[in-house]
């Protein structure tokens, strides 16, 4: 552990010292060992040579037990070498021995290395005296190894001294080198520290031409480059910050675990966060239903209409686009958030407008895909919304369904597309006959590539009214002309010649009656016109006693049809809260009672009833006759102006009475109902709403 706290210089010195010590120690040991081995080999050789030589030289003397000769050999040998003792043995006894008595007295023990000699101080060796493999004796010698030990000790001492001095020099050189080297390294270190604290563009002095100089040069170059890059990064960052904080959309970056790392100003504002509160916020705190797994695992990176939670616990509708990307080997998710609250509100409002619009419209892109169709459009063409999907290639689907509805009596030559893309009138035959006007415009007028919006306005009603007016004028002219033709014809006859009085009176009566008819016709026409024109404005609705009104009307009409009775048969009590215009209801009763009497030869019956409909209570008055009745066709046309069931003209009438009745009752908020079977009579009922809570007159 201490090593880690040492400076580079000291580490170098200690490192070199340890290595030096280790290898010098090995060197000294090795050298000593080699010296030992050499000396040992030498002494072994010497001992073997001497003993073998002696064994060879003394073989005859030993075999012949020539002691004198042996003594002579031994004495001459020991005098000329460093032999401590020599002993020659026969098979049973010592034949001769010379040398130091101390060593001679010790039991012989052969030595195999110098180390063994340390016990007795002599190197003991022997050689057998052999003849043809048969032993006759043995030579034992002991050599002095003092000198060898002395040489080894001396050599070890010298080697140790040299090693020690060498270590001192190496340590000194390491120290000087370390100082020189670290001085410049310290400069580099200081510069690096300053750089790490943010200082840029630092330069260290360049001296010499060694490796450290090269490192210094490289550092200066690196420092310069880092300075430039840092400056550029700062500039880029500043620009990026400006952009990020200027965009209206919120931008955030988070880990794939959902921990938010950064947010731009718009995102902070959106969630009501201060910038210092971003740290350690989880996306789930801000968007509880954020589908993080969905974003990571699927390609769907777009989340629509997810609810966000601001710091003040206010919900905001959000649209999020996410992207997974990698920075510094870490996976991040970058998202763009848009506050959809206002857009959604506008969309809902627009949607409501579209849904409620009686006009149909669709949005058609240039590639003929229909992206939007409002409910009125579906209704106009009677298309079930599920038949054609919106978006995509759906033009064929829609046009096929539209085709089915078109009345081709009006559209012979034009293709449907031409019809639709040209402002025109479209006639439909099914589900009901309709007339539509089509208008078309670009959604974005300035952009020719933008989608088209096609408006379909239902003008059927206007067309019908026009036709009705036209028909009415034709009918009215015809109806007015009929009495006028009689008046004109008979008056011309009277002016042209003289008639007897009876004939002349008859003709005057006809002219008078036709004049009355004409007047009646014009009166009713004017009434109807007035009522229509004023749309109920001239009505004076007030609570009246319907019973007395009915009774008076019956008496009045009975007078015109002598002998006939209108029998009142109330099935429910008379209401006390029925509001109506008394004059108009009298006219209604008069018209209906007259019609009943006209088309019936018997008495007629009036009955009353009540019914509930859509939370409202209606009081009904039915006029029932047992007359000729009406066919279903006649009944269906009843109410048309100037329509008369009796086309013969035998029954007097304008053909406007029922229309007038219908109009009056309609203005009262009531309804009329007519039922009949041909030859069985007819029942005409009108219902008037009870204005206040049903209040029954007892």
């Amino acid at each position, binding site marked *: 552990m201490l090593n880690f706290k040492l400076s580079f210089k000291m580490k170098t010195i200690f490192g070199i010292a340890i290595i030096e010590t280790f290898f010098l120690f090995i060197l000294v040991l090795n050298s000593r060992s080699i010296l030992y081995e050499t000396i040992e080999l030498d002494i072994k050789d010497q001992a073997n040579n001497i003993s073998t030589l002696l064994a060879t030289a003394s073989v*005859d003397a030993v*075999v012949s037990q020539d002691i*004198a000769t042996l003594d002579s050999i031994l004495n001459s040998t020991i005098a000329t070498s460093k032999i401590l003792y020599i002993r020659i043995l026969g098979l049973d006894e010592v034949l001769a021995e010379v040398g130091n008595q101390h060593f001679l007295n010790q039991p012989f023990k052969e030595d195999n290395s110098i180390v063994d000699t340390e016990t007795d101080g002599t190197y003991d060796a022997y050689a057998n005296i052999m003849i*043809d493999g048969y032993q*006759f004796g043995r030579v034992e010698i002991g050599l002095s190894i003092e000198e060898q030990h002395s040489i080894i000790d001396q050599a070890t001492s010298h080697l140790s001294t040299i090693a020690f001095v060498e270590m001192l020099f190496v340590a000194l050189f390491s120290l000087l080198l370390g100082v020189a080297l670290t001085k410049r390294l310290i400069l580099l270190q200081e510069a690096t520290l300053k750089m790490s604290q943010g200082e840029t563009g630092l330069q260290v002095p360049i001296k010499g031409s060694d490796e450290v100089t090269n490192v210094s040069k490289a550092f200066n170059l690196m420092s310069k480059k880092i300075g430039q890059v840092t400056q550029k990064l700062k500039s880029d960052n500043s620009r990026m910050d400006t952009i990020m904080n200027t965009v209206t959309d919120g931008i955030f970056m988070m880990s794939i675990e959902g921990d938010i790392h950064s947010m731009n100003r718009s995102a902070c504002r959106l969630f009501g966060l201060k910038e210092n509160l971003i740290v350690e916020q989880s996306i789930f705190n801000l968007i509880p239903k954020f589908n993080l797994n969905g974003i990571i695992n699927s390609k769907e990176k777009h989340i629509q209409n997810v609810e966000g939670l601001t710091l003040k616990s206010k919900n905001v509708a959000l649209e999020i686009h996410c992207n997974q990307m990698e920075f510094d080997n870490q996976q991040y998710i970058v998202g763009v958030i848009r506050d959809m609250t206002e857009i959604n509100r506008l969309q809902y409002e627009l949607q409501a407008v579209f849904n409620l619009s009686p006009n149909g419209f669709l949005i058609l892109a240039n590639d003929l895909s229909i992206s939007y169709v409002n409910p009125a459009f579906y209704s106009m063409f009677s298309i079930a919304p599920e038949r054609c999907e919106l978006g995509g290639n759906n033009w064929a689907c829609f046009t096929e369904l539209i085709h089915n509805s078109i009345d081709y009596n009006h559209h012979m030559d034009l293709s449907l597309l031409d019809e639709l893309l040209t402002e025109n009138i479209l006639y439909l035959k099914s589900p009901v006959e309709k007339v539509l006007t089509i208008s078309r415009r670009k959604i974005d007028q300035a952009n020719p590539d933008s989608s088209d919006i096609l408006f379909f306005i239902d003008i059927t009603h206007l067309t019908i009214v026009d036709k009705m007016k036209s028909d009415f004028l034709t009918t009215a002219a015809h109806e007015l002309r009929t009495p006028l033709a009689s008046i004109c014809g008979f008056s011309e006859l009277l002016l042209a010649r003289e008639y007897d009085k009876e004939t002349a009176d008859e003709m005057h009566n006809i002219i008078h009656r036709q004049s009355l008819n004409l007047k009646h016709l014009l009166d009713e026409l004017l009434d109807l016109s007035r009522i229509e024109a004023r749309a109920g404005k001239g009505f004076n609705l007030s609570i009246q006693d319907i019973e007395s009104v009915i009774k008076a009307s019956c008496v009045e009409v009975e007078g015109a049809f002598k002998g006939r009775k209108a029998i009142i048969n109330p099935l429910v009590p008379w209401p006390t809260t029925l509001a109506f215009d008394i004059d108009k209801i009298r006219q209604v009763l008069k018209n209906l009672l007259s019609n009943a009497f006209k088309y019936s030869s018997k008495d007629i019956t009036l009955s009353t009833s009540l019914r509930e409909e859509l939370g409202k209570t209606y009081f009904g008055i039915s006029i029932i006759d047992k007359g000729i009745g009406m066919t279903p066709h006649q009944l269906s046309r009843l109410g048309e102006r100037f329509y008369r069931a009796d086309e013969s003209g035998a029954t007097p009438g304008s053909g406007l009475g029922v229309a007038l009745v219908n109009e009056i009752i309609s203005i009262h908020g009531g309804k009329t109902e007519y039922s009949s079977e041909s030859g069985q009579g007819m029942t005409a009922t009108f219902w008037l709403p009870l204005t206040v809570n049903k209040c029954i007159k007892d």
Partner: protein
Amino acid sequence: MQALFIASIMMFFSSTVLAEGKILKLGVVPQQSASNLAKAWLPLTLSLSEKTGYQIRFATAPNIPEFEKRVAAGEYDITYLNPYHYTVFSQSIGLRAIARQKDKRIHGIIVVRKDSDISSLSMLSGVEIAFPAPAAFAATVLPQAHLRLEEVSFMPQYVSSHDSVYSGVVKGLFLAGGGIDRTLSTFPKAQSDKLKVIWRSEGYTPHAFAVSADLSDEETDRIQSALLSLNHQEDGMKILTRLGFKTGLMKSEDKDWDDVRSLKIDLLN
């Protein structure tokens, strides 16, 4: 009776055991260098050891006088010695001859240089004659005995070995030298060609294998049988041939050396 039987059995085993371990010294007359002599005699000693069960050890002496001293001191149990020595020590310490080389008679010779004028013993009067050693029987004792018998006065020089005698004569250091046929024939031919034999003695009983008077008869028999058994074995004959006993060995007894005794030599007294 039972105890006596057990005792006799034990004695038998103990004597056998003792016999098996007994060390007997075979002393050989130093006719050559001790190491050469040992090399030549080792096979015989090993063979005898094997056959007799004794540990037979080869021994010799540095020279004849020392050999004589050791024989006289009774150091050897078995002795191989020349005829003269035998006659002396059979008498003094009771050596008993048991064997000798078969059909072998020993001759002494006197050699001179081939270019020498000397041709008879009488011409050697006053001359320095080389001999191996004073007690060398064939090379020294026999020639000197005959020279004395013929009353020739001479100056003996002892040069330790037969080879030294022949070399000395070849080199002209001596005019004549005593030797024997066998050693002359083994002397290098280039030099032996420069020599000639001027005298050869009559045959005498050769060297004797003799045992010490201390050995029991049984031991003596065992050794004698072992020696003689070599004649009948191939390996034995090889051993004997190597020692120069090409004809083998034969059983001998003391009186076989009476011919030597008749020369009445008295060198050791």
